[in-house]
């Protein structure tokens, strides 16, 4: 069983979806829709509010109206266009958010400490949080009956409120809960680059104990992906691939070793 994360940064997902349609093994897809959400919320006059934590981590402040837009972009357009595309190629896809069937439950963190305009501030009413528990029953049920689950944030809090969670972490948590052999994270880059601006600086193999060294010099999305990969290994997932979703047969190439593979 493998879990595939399709990054929100990937513009054209069709080659990857077609390659997935040819893959016979059971699988769970997880996707984001960052760009879709940014575009939609701006056009609806409630532009995205990105904030920076005291430790410099950037995240999206998601108030209730932004969560409406989040559901439209992630669970509406992106999730269902993927299901449509997969079904047109004979895949028995079922689109879900991590709320449906209580797949991912976590703690909502309504108060957010941010540094803005040189000041330390507290924002209230954030609909973000972190995943604490995966309930795999629905996913296992669907997999056993030949369906391909296509999963997207949001998750849901203990009180039953939709919460924005990181797509890579959701994919990692689901991989661990289903004891997937491999987690593949497809994005619009060849893999983990020692120097983000130099595609030739691709690191092809990373052993578990080498991650910390690379972690220090990684920035932004690459950093979150390394974090997710390290936790995946700690949770018993055999290997994590940071792979290029823009190739003609992205999945086939990845399974033949292309991109960055991280294993214990």
């Amino acid at each position, binding site marked *: 069983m493998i879990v595939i994360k399709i990054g929100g940064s990937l513009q054209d997902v069709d080659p990857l979806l077609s390659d997935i349609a040819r893959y016979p093994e059971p699988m769970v897809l997880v996707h984001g829709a960052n760009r879709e959400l940014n575009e939609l919320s701006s056009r609806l006059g409630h532009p995205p509010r990105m904030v920076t*934590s005291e430790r410099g*981590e950037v*995240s999206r402040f998601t108030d209730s109206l932004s969560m409406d837009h989040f559901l439209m972009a992630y669970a509406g357009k992106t999730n269902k266009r993927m299901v449509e595309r997969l079904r047109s190629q004979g895949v028995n896809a079922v689109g879900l958010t991590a709320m449906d069937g209580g797949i991912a439950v976590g703690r909502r*963190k309504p108060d957010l400490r941010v540094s803005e305009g040189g*000041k330390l501030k*507290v924002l*209230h009413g954030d609909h973000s949080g972190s995943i604490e528990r995966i309930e795999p029953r629905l996913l296992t049920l669907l997999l056993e009956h030949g369906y391909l689950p296509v999963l997207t*944030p949001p998750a849901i809090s203990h009180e039953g409120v939709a*919460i924005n969670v990181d*797509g890579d972490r959701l994919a990692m948590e689901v991989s661990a809960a289903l004891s997937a052999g491999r987690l593949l994270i497809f994005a619009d880059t060849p893999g983990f680059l020692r120097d983000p601006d130099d595609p030739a600086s691709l690191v092809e193999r990373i052993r578990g104990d080498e991650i910390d060294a690379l972690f220090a010099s990684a920035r932004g999305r690459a950093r979150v992906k390394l974090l997710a990969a390290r936790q995946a290994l700690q949770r018993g997932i055999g290997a994590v691939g940071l792979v290029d979703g823009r190739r003609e047969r992205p999945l086939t190439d990845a399974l033949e070793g292309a991109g960055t593979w991280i294993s214990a």
Partner: protein
Amino acid sequence: MSIAMTATCPECEARVKLTPDLEKGEILQCTDCGAELEVAETNPVELRLAPEEEEDWGE
């Protein structure tokens, strides 16, 4: 609407100095007891204990 120059720390009741550009939601530190305080209101100024820093972040 000019903001008062000081307010009372809810933890140790010491006087806390306020800057003129005080904003709602801003975090201040009480110079006496060191508690982190949040500006709950600016008119009139109300301070309360600021929520702790989260150890981990969602997207």
